[in-house]
């Protein structure tokens, strides 16, 4: 039995999520390999040993540094074939999801996604349908491919020694080289982060318009909290990316989280589900956010929030 883990890196740092999956793979037993692709990854490979990799397959090529999936499918497909790996695991990310699905098609291999755990007998645990059911999933053939939900495993070092590093050389497919990253706006850390706030008031598309974020800001001011947002409103330019909560944003676990006009998509939930107390105001009684709220209020944010802010200010 041998398991390969795709280890993602960004600006010279191995991603915690990938290392967590690597540590999980090590706990399953058998040989564990890591695969890294991009500029300078050879220097990063040694660190994978501490999380259980005995072998690191590296494609150290600066031209492959832009985080695009298809060249990585070429490389990983080759490592899987040459190394005889029967399982390939990924920590979910925008990049990893696209690699995993491309690899599934390339190898005709089963992919189970959004797993939160996997057993040694290769049964995956997947909360499905807005987490209303916990499904046991399996694979009918090898290689088995899996994507794990963000935060499923802690990146706890297993105390292994440096892995044997092997260079990968691969001829890239023509379609794998076609897309190019021509610009990037990476987030620069600045000022206090919403990750440190004890109270977070988050706004979604249900606020209706960018200027209505004042509803969230005024409530946040009254409660002494910070303002968060969903990807939908960040992508639409209503609020800055630095305030985004979820899979591709920040992970917060405040004492109080109030969601205003947020549907509660899985990708949002993973960034706030460990909040102590969750209050949601949404006009749709069937909104998924109510499935994980301590207090769900079915109603219009425009009616309720100004009154709520007023009442809280009046208590002071």
């Amino acid at each position, binding site marked *: 039995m041998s398991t390969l883990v795709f280890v993602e890196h960004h600006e010279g740092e191995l991603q915690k999520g990938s290392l967590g999956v690597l540590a999980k793979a090590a706990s399953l037993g058998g040989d564990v390999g890591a695969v890294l692709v991009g500029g300078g990854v050879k220097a990063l490979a040694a660190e994978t040993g501490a999380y259980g990799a005995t072998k690191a397959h590296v494609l150290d090529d600066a031209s492959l540094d*832009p985080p695009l999936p298809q060249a990585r499918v070429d490389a990983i497909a080759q490592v899987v074939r040459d190394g005889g790996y029967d399982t390939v695991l990924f920590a979910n990310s925008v990049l990893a999801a696209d690699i995993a*699905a491309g690899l599934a*098609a390339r190898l005709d*291999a089963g*992919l189970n996604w959004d797993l939160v755990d996997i057993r040694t007998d290769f049964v995956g645990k997947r909360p499905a349908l807005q987490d209303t059911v916990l499904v046991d999933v*399996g694979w009918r*053939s090898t290689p088995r491919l899996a994507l794990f939900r963000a935060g499923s495993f802690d990146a706890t070092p297993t105390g292994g020694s440096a892995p044997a590093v092997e260079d990968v050389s691969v001829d890239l497919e023509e379609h794998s080289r076609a897309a*190019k990253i021509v610009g990037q706006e*990476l987030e620069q850390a600045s000022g206090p982060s919403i990750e440190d706030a004890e109270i977070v008031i988050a706004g979604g598309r249900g606020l209706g318009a960018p200027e209505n974020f004042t509803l969230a800001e005024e409530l946040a001011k009254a*409660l002494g909290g910070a303002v968060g947002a969903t990807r939908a409103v960040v992508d639409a330019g209503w609020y800055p990316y630095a305030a985004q909560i979820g899979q591709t944003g920040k992970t917060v676990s405040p004492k109080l989280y109030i969601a205003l006009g947020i549907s509660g998509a899985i990708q949002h939930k993973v960034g706030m589900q460990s909040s102590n107390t969750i209050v949601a105001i949404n006009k749709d009684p069937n909104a998924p956010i109510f499935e994980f709220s301590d207090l769900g209020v079915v109603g219009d944010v425009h009616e309720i929030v100004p009154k709520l802010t007023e009442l809280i200010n009046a208590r002071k």
Partner: protein
Amino acid sequence: MKIAVCVKHVPEGASKIDPATKRIDRSREGALNHFDANAVEEALRLKGDGDTEVVVVSMGPEQAGDSLRKALAMGADRAVLVSDDAAAGSDLVATSKILAQALEREGAELVLFGQQASDADGAVLWAAVAERLRRPVISQAAELSLAGETVHVKRQTEFGYDVIEAPLPAVVSVSDAINEPRYPSLKGIMGAKKKPSETFTLADIGVAAGDAGEAGSKTEVLALGDPPARADSRKIEGDASAAQAIVDFLAEKRLV
């Protein structure tokens, strides 16, 4: 130019799994996956007043015709449905094979996908289809434009925004913030019935039954269980008066 848009017919409201088949219960009323309305809208925006053809493509039960008709009513030009009992229960490997085969016949310069199917929440299918079509793929597009033979996309990742370009033909999935999908007009709804619409079996498009459905799938659902329950969850309905109930709740939890 031709743009193909992949759309899924999903059960309306909260989905349920049928314990007997361990598949999503598709017997109930269905609707166009709302994330796919963004992809249809984007195709229509790119088309504008030009002579681009927008083809909507779906794999699903016969009732998926309703969702395709909605896309036609929004303004798409033509619909293709792959429907076959042998395709039921297809996983990613099988679905991508079937859709890729249907798309291969269309030869569209641009293939658009929605952000995710609201029942399966995979948010991965495009990458598998693009691999089978051997075309470049870009996911999570928050902005999209065409310039000559190139598609430009701005998209969000865990680290900020990337601007990506790829030569056509290409596959792109769009985020739900890329646009505001239009509602079909009465005229659109009437006109949809007259638009060309084809239904194919697997044999028609050249997919072997053994490559589809459960036979062609590499994953399986083994068992269903209840997720850990969240203790003490309350739900209230209300107008402005609900504000007082929220304050009382926060006071009880010593949060104000």
